């Protein structure tokens, strides 16, 4: 029988191992999340990222080696972003009636998200790399990572911050909206989708279908709004 470390050396040289481990870690995360009764703070992606990062550090594997396997999953981000046009189109048909109010609130929300995140980070002395990676935090991960990359930030940091933003919104959003006396389902959905993208949308959908549709649309439109607004704002300021 061969030494276990020899088998590891053999396996880690092929993309199969880390591709498989990525899928396994995600399935495990999803399992834990469902078992918990879909608690927003037990996010499957966050669990998988922590597990995989711990495994890589523990085995002394560098990120490049991991990415050789994981790149097959990573590649699909681009086509998935394009495919967001389909739910966007579907929801667009449903919410046409409130188009003007929706657009104005969305742009206000989008600007608030960017300016407050960068402003607070800057006041508290965050580095420039952190600020760029923080700026698109309210946008769905594939788009946020694309924006960060174009502005010279760290897409991987953005991916994690985006997930944490989603969790924050999903955990505290509904009670905050109630405390503010915002009871309209459309406004509640729009707020959740604008601030905390897909994770917020999933949370809104758990509560109410109208809120879910508005949240999904807000997620798509905010991705678009931020992709256009943020690079322009960034060039004006820095």
């Amino acid at each position, binding site marked *: 029988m061969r030494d276990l470390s020899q088998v590891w050396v053999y396996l880690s040289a092929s993309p199969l191992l880390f591709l498989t481990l990525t899928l396994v870690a*995600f399935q495990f995360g999803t399992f834990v999340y469902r078992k918990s009764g879909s608690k927003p703070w037990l996010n499957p*992606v966050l669990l998988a990222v922590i597990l995989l990062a711990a495994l890589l550090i523990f085995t002394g594997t560098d990120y490049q080696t991991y990415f050789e396997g994981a790149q097959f999953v990573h590649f699909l981000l681009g086509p998935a972003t*394009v495919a967001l*046009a389909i739910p966007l189109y579907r929801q667009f048909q449903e919410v046409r009636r409130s188009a003007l109010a929706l657009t104005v609130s969305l742009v206000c*929300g989008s600007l608030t998200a960017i300016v*407050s995140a960068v402003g607070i980070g800057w006041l508290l002395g965050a580095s420039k790399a952190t600020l760029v990676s923080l700026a698109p935090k309210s946008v769905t991960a594939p788009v946020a990572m694309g924006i960060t990359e174009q502005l010279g930030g760290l897409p*991987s940091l953005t991916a994690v911050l985006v997930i944490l933003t989603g969790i924050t*919104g999903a955990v505290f959003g509904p009670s905050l909206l109630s405390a503010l006396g*915002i009871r309209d389902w*459309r406004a509640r959905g729009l707020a959740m989708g604008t601030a905390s993208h897909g994770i917020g949308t999933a949370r809104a959908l758990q509560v109410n279908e109208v809120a879910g549709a508005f949240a999904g649309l807000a997620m798509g439109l905010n991705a678009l709004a931020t992709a256009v607004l943020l690079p322009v704002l960034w060039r004006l300021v820095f």
Partner: protein
Amino acid sequence: MLASLTLILVCQLVGELTAGFFGLPVPGPVLGMVLLFLILGVRGRISEPLKATADGLLGHLSLLFIPAGVGVMAHLSLLEADWLPITVALLVSTLLTIAVTGFVMVRLDRMTGHTSTEADDA
């Protein structure tokens, strides 16, 4: 299915080329999304295979950002140095965004006189 996947990839490619050629700061796939949205608008409907392909890609969307997320292990020192601004900015900015978006939407709705769909037990 294959035709839909091709359509999606062509949109992405055109998006990437447009962004690269004109030096636009918008990510290529986002332009691809806009292009596909416009195509759907012209067609006036979503075909069954396209819907199936999109559902397949988006059904496990969150899986797709795990590889990039794991990359954060390379930036642990940055996280350690900036944990305070990151935590405060994330928390305050997210809650502020929810409040502003919801508040503006409710106000505008009242001004334009739309009937609202209110929560019973919000």
